[in-house]
């Protein structure tokens, strides 16, 4: 009697396990990093929903940030995936980890049109239509279009907040483009809130604004900031890494240069490739958010003070045309049903 019971229960358990195995179709438990800024939150939550509903994986989100998440993935092999890894911060260790097979770069550009650079507000174009299509080099000839509040005879170029890496880069580019001689002042906005404040104030009142910002951000989406082409090519890594990025006393002769390209990857661990299988890897590979759509989502998040999980549902409902291309039609159906 007893033995019968044991065998029976064992069979039942076995049955459950094998049944589960069939349902998950080769996908197990995955840990995905949810980094602490809006676009990364959104991507992590979209991945969670698609992997869980579409591929039957079990996904756990863990909080993260650029450096800690990468270090943990590299050393411990967990989390299994970082949807938005800013690669400039980890160039060398990433190369090493990829060649050792610990990490796989599953998607080289999960968001299009991203990066740092110089921008103008649409109000600027409205006031001075001739600025459309002008490069930075040409705009720099017209400091009178952007009068500084404190010294209206000079043009205001809004740089980066004190203490950020981009502050140094902007100060060196300010010298490299000889902007002081051309009649410009470099405004230090003091903080991220200060920088955002100058933009929203200029955009609200329709006055011209010229300065540094980066993409993808809700500011770019909300105020429709226009990127400015530098008008000079990228002058090489030697100039950028060994001069532009260093404090001005260590950078005697900065060369005018376009902003270095920001590289963002979706990286996954070796374990992810093993448990997830080919289908899931190909999903990650195809999953590219067009820049304007991403910015639109960030504006939605900022306006509604929405969390990543809410925004992910909003994205999946609103932008079906985009994400259904990332997955097979049967998976898309499952995800839609699960929403």
């Amino acid at each position, binding site marked *: 009697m007893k033995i019968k019971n044991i065998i029976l229960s064992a069979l039942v358990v076995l049955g459950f396990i094998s049944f589960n195995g069939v349902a998950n179709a080769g996908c197990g438990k995955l840990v995905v990093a949810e980094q602490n800024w809006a676009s990364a939150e959104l991507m992590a939550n979209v991945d969670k929903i698609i992997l869980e509903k579409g591929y039957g994986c079990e996904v756990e989100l863990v909080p993260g940030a650029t450096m800690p998440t990468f270090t943990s993935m590299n050393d411990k092999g967990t989390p299994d995936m970082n949807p938005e890894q800013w690669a400039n911060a980890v160039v060398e260790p990433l190369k090493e980890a990829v060649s050792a097979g610990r990490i796989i770069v599953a998607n080289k550009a999960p968001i299009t049109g991203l990066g740092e650079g110089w921008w103008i507000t649409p109000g600027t174009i409205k006031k001075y239509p001739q600025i459309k299509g002008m490069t930075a080099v040409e705009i720099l000839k017209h400091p009178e279009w952007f009068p500084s509040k404190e010294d209206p005879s000079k043009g205001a170029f809004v740089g980066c907040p004190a203490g950020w890496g981009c502050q140094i880069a902007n100060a060196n580019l300010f010298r490299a483009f000889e902007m002081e001689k051309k009649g410009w002042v470099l405004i230090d906005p003091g903080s991220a809130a200060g920088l955002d404040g100058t933009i929203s104030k200029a955009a609200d*009142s329709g006055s011209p604004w010229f300065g540094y910002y980066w993409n993808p951000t809700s500011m770019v989406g909300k105020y429709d900031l226009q990127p400015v082409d530098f008008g000079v090519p990228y002058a090489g890594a030697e100039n950028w890494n060994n001069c532009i990025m260093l404090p001005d006393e260590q950078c005697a002769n900065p060369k005018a240069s376009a902003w270095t390209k920001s590289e963002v990857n979706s990286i996954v661990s070796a374990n992810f490739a093993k448990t997830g299988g080919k289908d899931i890897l190909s999903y990650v590979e195809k999953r590219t958010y067009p820049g304007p759509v991403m910015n639109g989502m960030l504006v939605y998040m900022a306006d509604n003070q929405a969390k990543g999980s809410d925004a992910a549902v909003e994205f999946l409902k609103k932008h079906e045309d985009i994400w259904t291309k990332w997955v097979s039609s049967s998976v898309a159906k499952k995800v839609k049903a699960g929403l």
Partner: protein
Amino acid sequence: MEFFTKFPVMERSALADLRKGIDFVFRDFSRSYGDAIEAFFDPVLFFLVRFEKIMINTPWPIIIIIICSLAWIGSRSWKLVLGTAISFFLIGYFGMWKDCMATVAIITVCVIICMAVGIPMGILMARSNRVEKTMLPILDMMQTIPSFVYLIPILMLLGIGKVPGLIAICIYAVPPIIRLTNLGIREVDKETIEASEAFGATKIQKLKTVQIPLALPTVFAGVNQTIMMALAMVVIASMIGVKGLGVPILRAVMNQYLALGLFNGLAIVAIAIIFDRISQEYGRRIQKHRGIKK
């Protein structure tokens, strides 16, 4: 039971609408009146920019001589004058001269504005109990509300730069001078006032010749506190684009530059101590000739 375990919260969407509504009302307000308010502050900005330029462009020995002679006029103490000279030499020697001058310039203007607003306000409070009752909670709020909270509307209204920085500093630094002017006048001896009334002094005469002179030491304590609090706000003002010693401190905090932060922090301390001692000594000296010893 649920009523007791769960706090009755406003509905989520209504709460979000309320927040959004407040934001929109203020945004509309700043869109329609922002330029006018900015224009109103233009003279202050003009004065600030000029004053900072003068401070920075004047050759450093002249500035040191001026500050040292101010120290002498205020305190009549050789020790203090020497200390002032050495501090400013060190500040310059460690490469902080320009930032230091920018900070001294904005603090000076702030203190002048605080005195111009605060002393009349304090007098008004001392003369009317009703004004005192309404002002006290406002002063409490100005001193305790986290500065970042009022930085948001100031940023939306005026953008970044010297004027918004000046307003942020003044909001924080003006309460002590109002409070202490009020206190000083209210504490003037009743019998002295009676005596002046017996001689037929008008209200203005009483104020000018009895109350204010007797309250002056307390008022000076207020000025002193205002200077200290204005200096404490220098770093926060730098977060909205005010140049000065606060900028390198922000840079130091962001990048964990210990020495840079320490140097600039100590420079602020040095300025604070110098101004504190000068104004305190001055306050003590104006008491001295009246024979009150401390």
